[in-house]
């Protein structure tokens, strides 16, 4: 799959620090203006869903695209973050941000637990084990009725408390725009930190493990420990997405975290271009918006979605990142010719 190599180079290392700074500045500007442009409830809601999906996609990409661990159970960490934080808030009246931290930590620990298996499993075995983990989590959420209320779900989950400084309300998260800024800001920060990490020696280490574990060990890399690390980080980010999801939607049902959700996240990463961080961001946005745009097609919209996924894998396996790279390279060649 050498297509992705060039994508990784063009979009990753080759960019100078000034270009990156401009990139982040643009991202901030886009985040700030988006809710001003889309000023109806429907699209503002979708914007926040986009931001949540971006979190899910970059977390999975860290595990899958960088460390090469075939995780088909990302929905489990998403669900655990959502349920743990919500139950703490609803049942024990824990303050939101404390419950948030607990949800993130719990999801991260669950990922760590699962990856203790991953240490010994390769490829498809891990894929099925993680899928199985997601099935178990979904079934527990569904069947532990005294705790989760099962398929009936939990209703009336409050948004995060308003941000108040010196008695003046700075951000009231009942407001859709404020909520979007909160999640998008968190997603941008997560992206920034992950991007710093993958441009450090950790990036090479994880890629080395992805490419060849025996070789990596011959260079002193403790593959087991780094896989646990990647899983821990990626699943903690999914946990954060879950906390935001619960307080944003206000309702939790186990089916939101069925394994098909894991496939959706996977599709975002693949369509965007795994192994680049920026690709899955666009993948998440595209695959969140696409089904909304196709809503007019009714049942057929998911047919189109599935066909798009298959098409991308068959013809542009490096995803949008690869496509952007090809365009970029052509432009560059034309300029230098």
């Amino acid at each position, binding site marked *: 799959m050498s297509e992705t*190599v060039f994508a*990784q180079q063009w979009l990753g290392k080759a960019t100078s620090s000034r270009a990156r700074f401009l990139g982040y500045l643009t991202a901030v500007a886009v985040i700030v203006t988006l809710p001003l442009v889309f000023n109806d409830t429907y699209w503002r809601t979708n914007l926040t869903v986009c931001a949540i999906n971006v979190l899910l996609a970059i977390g999975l990409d860290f595990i899958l695209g960088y460390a090469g661990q075939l995780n088909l159970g990302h929905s489990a960490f998403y669900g655990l973050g959502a349920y743990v934080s919500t139950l703490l808030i609803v049942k024990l009246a824990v303050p939101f941000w404390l419950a948030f931290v607990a949800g993130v930590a719990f999801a991260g620990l669950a990922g760590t637990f699962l990856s203790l298996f991953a240490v010994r499993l390769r490829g498809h075995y891990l894929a099925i084990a993680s899928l199985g983990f997601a099935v178990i989590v979904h079934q527990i959420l569904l069947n532990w009725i005294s705790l989760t209320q099962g398929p009936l779900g939990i209703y009336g989950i409050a948004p995060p408390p308003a941000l108040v400084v010196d008695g003046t309300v700075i951000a009231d998260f009942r407001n859709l725009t404020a909520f979007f800024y909160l999640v998008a800001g968190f997603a941008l920060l997560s992206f920034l930190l992950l991007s710093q990490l993958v441009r*450090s*020696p950790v990036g*090479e280490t994880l*890629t*080395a493990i992805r490419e*060849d574990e025996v070789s990596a060990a011959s*260079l*002193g890399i403790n593959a087991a420990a780094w896989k646990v690390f990647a899983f821990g980080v990626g699943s903690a980010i999914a946990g954060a997405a879950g906390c935001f999801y619960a307080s944003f939607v206000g309702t939790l049902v186990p089916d939101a975290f069925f394994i098909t959700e894991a496939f959706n996240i996977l599709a975002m990463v693949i369509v965007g271009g795994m192994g680049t961080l920026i690709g899955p961001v666009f993948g998440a946005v595209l695959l969140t918006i696409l089904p909304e745009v196709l809503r007019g097609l009714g049942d057929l919209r998911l047919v189109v979605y599935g066909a798009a996924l298959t098409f991308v894998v068959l013809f542009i396996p490096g995803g949008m990142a690869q496509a952007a790279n090809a365009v970029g390279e052509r432009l560059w060649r034309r300029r230098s010719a």
Partner: protein
Amino acid sequence: MSATADGAAGEPLLRTQELQKNFGGVKAVSEISFDVPMGAIFAVIGPNGAGKSTLINLISGVYRPDAGSLSFDGVDLSTMPAHLRVRFGIARTFQKIRLFRQLTALDNVIAGFHVHHKIPAWQYLVHGAAFTADRRRCRDQAMQLLEFVGMSGRAHVPAGSLSYGEQRMLELARALATKPRLLLIDEPAAGLNAAEVDGLLDRIRSLRHGGTTVILVEHNMDLVMNVADRIMVMEYGRRLFEGTPAEVQKNPAVIAAYLGGELL
């Protein structure tokens, strides 16, 4: 040949005792004991399937021995995982090339610096001066290693797109990035042309000048006889003979089993 090779007193750098490894019914390595003195070039030869690569895998920690022991610089390594042995100074190349195919040649070598980074933990997230200095140092040293193996012009090519000979040399450079005291090279000349083999010979010699001890598995007898201080001959997992190149060439058992008429 060299003074360190034969007459060195005290502990050898590597000592194996009665090493054994079975695969199902196959005794790939059995009752292998030998010492490698500091600074020596120790060659292992033998017919296909003799157990040479298995021996390299035992020393580098890819396999655990079924019996016997292995000590490096006085430390018992028999059960130590492969990745920790690198920190003691053992590095290797692979007979079947195992590069990070999607990474560039340069990044392959940089990945070899894994155990030598000097970056405070927080600077992994907020890149500061120490981070930048470390990155630059690794890059420069990696370029030097690529130059050493004659590949400075190919630094930005993905490893998977390099020629076979280049891939072998890149594996060598990547192993050297770990700054080994003992370097294990498994058939480095396989698939190289005559000129490339000459270059390889020079490089192995200059590594020895730099103080690196080398265990060399090789079928190319010219190379082995020219560069090795001692040679161990293996057959069916066992040691057939061990001695200097001259002794090996004269030994009737070795000639019968392996060298055949080739060197007579």
